[in-house]
Structures are given as C-alpha cells and as structure tokens.
C-alpha cells in the first residue's frame, strides 16, 4: 500500500495538492500510488512560469517507460514556480513523490473545487491497486 499523507489533498487524476489551507499558493505533484502505477518516470514536461491555467487543464506530461500521462492543474491561477530539479531527474517522481518530486506551484485565482481528503483518496485507490 503506497503512502498517502494525511495533511495533503488529492484529485481523481492522482495528483496531490498542498498549501490550500494556508493561503493562495498550491503545490502539486503526483501521488506515490500513481508513481508506482507508472513505473520508472523518464520525462516530465512542466508548464512555463507565468502561464495562466484553468482548473482541470492539461498543462504538462509525465512519461514512464510504458506510458505517457497528462498532468492537470487542480486549480485555476498562475504558475509561479516549476520544479527544474525534477525536469533534470524525473526519477524523483518515483523516489520522493511528496517531496523532491513536486511538479509545480500555482497562485490560486478564484474559487477552488472540492478536492479529496486522504481518506477519500485511500478509498479511491484501494479498489484498483
């Protein structure tokens, strides 16, 4: 069973979001569950800093040996930071998905749809793992 930290929020697209409680900056990555499903991540394409994104928009890609998956923005706003370290070393998505493997940071603009709690995400992933 992969790690699902209690303090984070989650999407059905297997991304985690932090910082929503504390202000208007959301940090986004892919969950350990998703990283395990993907296998070795070999390429990460991230949006440009300064880009305006809408909720649910495909703004990047995570590629593994076997597949390519879109990365979605779970919130609307402006991209204020991307993780260049993970671009250089995509394996961080596998080795440290909730830490060094984070993908991008959004300054939230407007209302945010409800995300999943750790318990809800656990329920979502326990069926098909």
């Amino acid at each position, binding site marked *: 069973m992969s790690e699902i930290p209690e303090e984070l929020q989650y999407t059905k697209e297997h991304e985690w979001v932090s910082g929503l409680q504390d202000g208007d900056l959301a940090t986004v990555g892919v969950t350990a569950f998703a990283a*395990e*499903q993907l*296998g*070795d991540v*070999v*390429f990460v*394409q991230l949006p440009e800093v300064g880009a305006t994104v809408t909720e649910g928009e495909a703004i990047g890609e995570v*590629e593994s*040996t*076997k597949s*390519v998956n879109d990365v979605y923005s779970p919130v609307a706003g402006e991209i204020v930071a991307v993780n260049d370290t993970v671009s250089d070393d995509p394996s961080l998505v*596998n080795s440290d998905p909730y830490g060094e493997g984070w993908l991008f940071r959004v300054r939230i603009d407007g209302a945010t749809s409800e995300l999943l709690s750790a318990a809800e995400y656990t329920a979502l992933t326990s069926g098909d793992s």
Partner: protein
Amino acid sequence: MSRPTPLREVHESLGATLTDFAGWLMPLRYGSEAAEHNAVRSAAGLFDLSHMGEIYVTGPQAADALDHALVGHLGTLDTGRARYTMICADDGGVLDDLIVYRLAAETFMVVANASNAPRVAAELTARARPYDAVVDDRSDSVALIAIQGPRAQEILATLTDADLPGLKYYAGLPGTVAGFDALIARTGYTGEDGFELFVAGPDATPLWHALTKAGEPYALRPAGLSARDTLRLEAGMPLYGNELSDALTPFDAGLGRLVKFDKPGDFVGRAALERVRDTPPRRRLTGLVMVGRRVPRHGYPVVLRQDGTIVGEVTSGAPSQSLGRPIAMAYVDTDAQGPLAVDIRGSHEPVDVVDLPFYRRKK
C-alpha cells in the same frame, strides 16, 4: 479473465505489477524496470515466459510438414539445433515469427508468440494434414523460464551437469536443472547471452526458486515484460504486432533471407512471396535515436524535419538505458530525404537515424 502462469504466486510474493498480455496475467515489472533492464545487461535477469506457445510436430514426415507450413527449410535443421523462421499466409503476410527446435529426427518444437499461438497451432494442424505428422499444442503444460545476461551461464552451471560451454547459440539439449527435466536452450530476446528452460508446469516454481537462490551471489534479479521489451528493442529484435504483422511480408520487414525458395516442394505463401522478392519495399525498418528526452511510441508518425511531410511510422519506442536517450524502430520511406523528426503528440521532435541494432553486446 486473463490466465495465470504456473508462477503467478511467485510473482505476487515478489510484489510484481501484473498486467494482461495476450490473454495472460504476466509480470510487467517487479520494481524499477530500468534496474531490471540494467541487471540483464550487467549481470543476469530471470524471466517468466510461460505465456509463449509450444507446439510439437512429430512423425516420419514432420520435417516435410514444416517445410510446407513455414518459410524456412527445417529439413536441413540438425537435431539439437534451433532456427528463427516465420509462418506466412497465402498472401505472404507474416502470421507469426517462430523459433523451431529439432529435438529428434522426427520431433520438432515450434515456439510461437503467446498472442498468435492458437492460430499457429490451428494453421500447423491444417497444413500438416496431408503429411504423416501429428501437431500437438502443449502450451498449457509447458512452462518457460529464461535466464539472460553475462552471468547466466555461471549461475545455470551451479544447477546442472549439462555441457553449457559446448551449447551453441540457437541450440537446445535435454538435461536436468536443479533436478528437474528441462530442455536447455541457448536462445533469448534480450541481446545478451542466456538460456531458455522449457519445463513441465508444476516444476516451474521450484525451478524458479532454485535459480533465484543460485543467482544471489551474481546479482540475478527477476525481470518483467517491460524490461524484456526495452532489451529486445535495443537489440533491434522485431516484435509481432509492432514490427511484424499479417499486413507485411518477411521482405517488408527486412527478413527476406528467412524465406527459402530453393527448398523442395511448395510452401504456403510461396507464390505471393516470389512476386515481391525482387521488388524493393517502399519502407525500410529504421533505427531512430531521439535528440531530446520525449519518448516516441508505437504508431507515432515519422516526419521530415523540414516541412512535416509524413514519411513513416514508429513501430516500437522506449527510453534506452544503454544509450541514455529514447530510441525507436520505425518503417520509413526509402526515398525520404533530409533530417527526420517524430511527431510526438503534435510536436516534431528531431531524431538521428542510426543502424540497427542500437546495442550489441561485447563478445
């Protein structure tokens, strides 16, 4: 529902990610597929290939039946040796690529891809009917374990008295491994030295455990289908469904040398293949290495960098551990002029054209 191999519980206990492949529940990977790939290149890997089809053709006219059914000349195959060949349709299209072992003068074992095994068995049965030969599909009772990599022989030697150093590439001999009866073959699909062990289904699990234990000092590790695919791609080996299909002849795939027109008698596909043997194919199987890091995949168009004209199609693509960049095999127009790119979801990513294979092991 996909069928499990006899090793299913072993895979589960190893924490494998299982996947449906050709109707079988197979290990995709046990952990990091890159680590599994690298283990096979540097030490050794252990594969469950029990999904492959094993079809026996026996009888006084077994060789004649195969010479009629396949494009190769199996009558010339020595006992104890194996040959890579193909079974074609009447129109010359490839139905499957095969390895045929001659186990005795009148006993052959045809190894077919899992996805094609039932069709190959049915075709062999129909094509062998006029001959004094019996076709027996033993895919369900035969398990296949491969040990591949530069340390494979050392590991296997600890479990068998068989003359491994004397066993040539594309040869197979009956023996015992860890006390189990096995056909020990020096064949593989990884570009490394290695062996394939055909055993009775119930022996697969204890044999796997014996190999795992024997391989411990040599850094042997289990490897899944994902590593198998990247290994064979680096070695430039075709995969049915990707580089081969019934829409292509052996000549289209650059494997016309497998078709033996000079063998006696007619064979299925002969007339159609004779018509195309001297016609240069429009496209040629080509090796591509990406300049960047995005991965080309099956079905992506190959385009001219200059103007985006489509000149080919990727058949297999993956990140390459050995080259450090993604690689692909693609059918590309022989008259395509100028630098190429692959259309990766709308973005034309430049590629270098290289000779196949991408990887060749050091002797």
